[in-house]
């Protein structure tokens, strides 16, 4: 079992979600994040003072999958989230030791997926 964490552009969330659904990957958790990466920041302006903003709004998607799904999930995300411009985001993969469904108490591979 792996945890796939993807940071993507906020406006790509819908596309990524749709793409994942179409691959029947329908479990995920999403949080809001601010990110600093290669993309660099921008300048805001407030009452005559410049503000360097180097944290950009990103969406963080967490998907726990069984090992066999890792590649297809990653590919799907990349396909949907990629625009070719700097700032497209990054994907991290972590090991999961255990997964438990609260309602049933199921564990491991059964709990992660369907």
């Amino acid at each position, binding site marked *: 079992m792996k945890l796939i964490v993807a940071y993507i552009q*906020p*406006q*790509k*969330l*819908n596309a990524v979600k749709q793409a994942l659904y179409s691959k029947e990957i329908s479990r995920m958790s999403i949080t*809001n994040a601010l990110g600093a990466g290669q993309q660099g920041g*921008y*300048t*805001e*302006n*407030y009452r005559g003072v410049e503000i360097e903003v180097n944290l950009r*709004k990103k*969406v963080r998607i967490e998907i726990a999958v069984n090992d066999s799904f890792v590649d297809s999930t990653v590919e799907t995300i990349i396909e949907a989230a990629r625009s070719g411009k700097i700032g497209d985001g990054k994907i991290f993969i972590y090991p999961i030791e255990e997964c438990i469904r609260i309602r049933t108490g199921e564990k491991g591979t059964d709990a992660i997926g369907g």
Partner: protein
Amino acid sequence: MNKLIISLLCLMTLGVFSSQAGTELAVSGEGITLESFKGSVKASWDELETKEETSASVEGSKTVTDDGISETYTGVITYTIAADGEGSLSFESDDKFWTSNVFMMFCAVLVFIMHLGFCCLEVGFSRAKNSVNIIFKNFTIVAIATLIYGAIGFNIMYPGDFSIGSFFGFAGPGLGGTAGEMGMTYSDGYTYWTDFLFQAMFAAATASIVSGAVCERIKINSFLIFCTIFAGVIYPIIGSWGWGGGFLGDWGFHDLAGSGLVHATGGAGALAGAIVLGPRIGKYVNGKTFAIMGHNMPIAAIGAFLLWFGWFGFNGGSQLNGDPMGTSGIMVMTLLASTAGVVAAMILSWILSGKPDLSMVLNGALAGLVGITAGADVVSPLYAVIIGAVAGLLVVVAVIALDKLKIDDPVGAVPVHLVCGSWGVVATGIFGTAEGCTVLGQIKSILCIVVFAFVCAFIIFTIIKVTIGLRVSEEEELEGLDLGEHGMEAYSGFQIFTNQ
């Protein structure tokens, strides 16, 4: 026996900038007797061409001394020359004028706060990432519309004489006039300044209506240019047809406070803008309609409530004096129509989507208000309720229809102002008791207004589009106009999803 002493005082000394010439009555100064006044008025009259049954007025005061008590009344003295050449004098106290003028000023102030209403409604019904831009638009509209309307619009709308048929006229740029013609003799219930105050608020409202339909994608400079022209030229031209003595009057056109002249005009401009701009990214994808939810319903509610609040001034003040039965009747009809609009929109949206939709209910109140705006002075309570209820239904249907047509109007400016404004004009023909006002005349009138406003707005938007550009880049639209146009956020520190 009373002794009358007429002393004429030039009451206005405000050193106003005036770009207009005017004939001032030669009579002024203290201690002038009745006979000398008559004489001098008559003399200036004799110079004029038309002498039959006409009159001249001047502000003055009248003092009565009786039994050792002296009383002075201020007001207007009118000298009327009848067909037989005989002149007669009448005096009208200015007590009611003071009241009416106070009433009108407060009505204007109520209309002013409608701009905060427009602003909040638009902010609430759109996404957080565009809020700064929307506030910026709505705030500067008031400024720009007032200034351009003061510079030229007011004198296009009330040209005195028309230069092109009864279609266009212009009384020259600038504000102000001859002292002595701007006060009590200017009208029955308000001074020149009060008139401008009230009218300028209407011009700004017309531009604000457009704002709602084009938000979340229009470039700020392009929008401001559009507004300047729309509030400064297009609206005044249309206004002059109805309120400035133009050709709509020939058809018996009745539009108390502007269901047609203000709301349908603004709504037609909104429609043109929405069409030329195209829909927001993500609104219609692969033939399917997606909802782009407003981000702040409490702010939207503040907007709707404030518009409702201000509307009592909008309609009430449009009687142009403080006559008790007239104004209070207008206010009640306004209230009844808006409440009927709320209930009708609530019921229909409840039926259509299974749950009562707040945004439809807010629009329902506005629909009822727009609907009754033309005829609040000439309908009974029953008809006010009917007009408002129909408007409430129309707005729900029109919102859905507009989506079917793939025209993206974030706040519903077209359904509320164009559709219900047109309905209001026609309804006045159906239900109203205004003299000479017919259904046919109203339909012809509203067609002229809507077509002209739409075509003009369409042309202006198109010219802007092909020259300096009308719409922000896709990237900017996705990131939000707040950062793109203003380099600023509306909710600094709040964690907000911007994925739509």
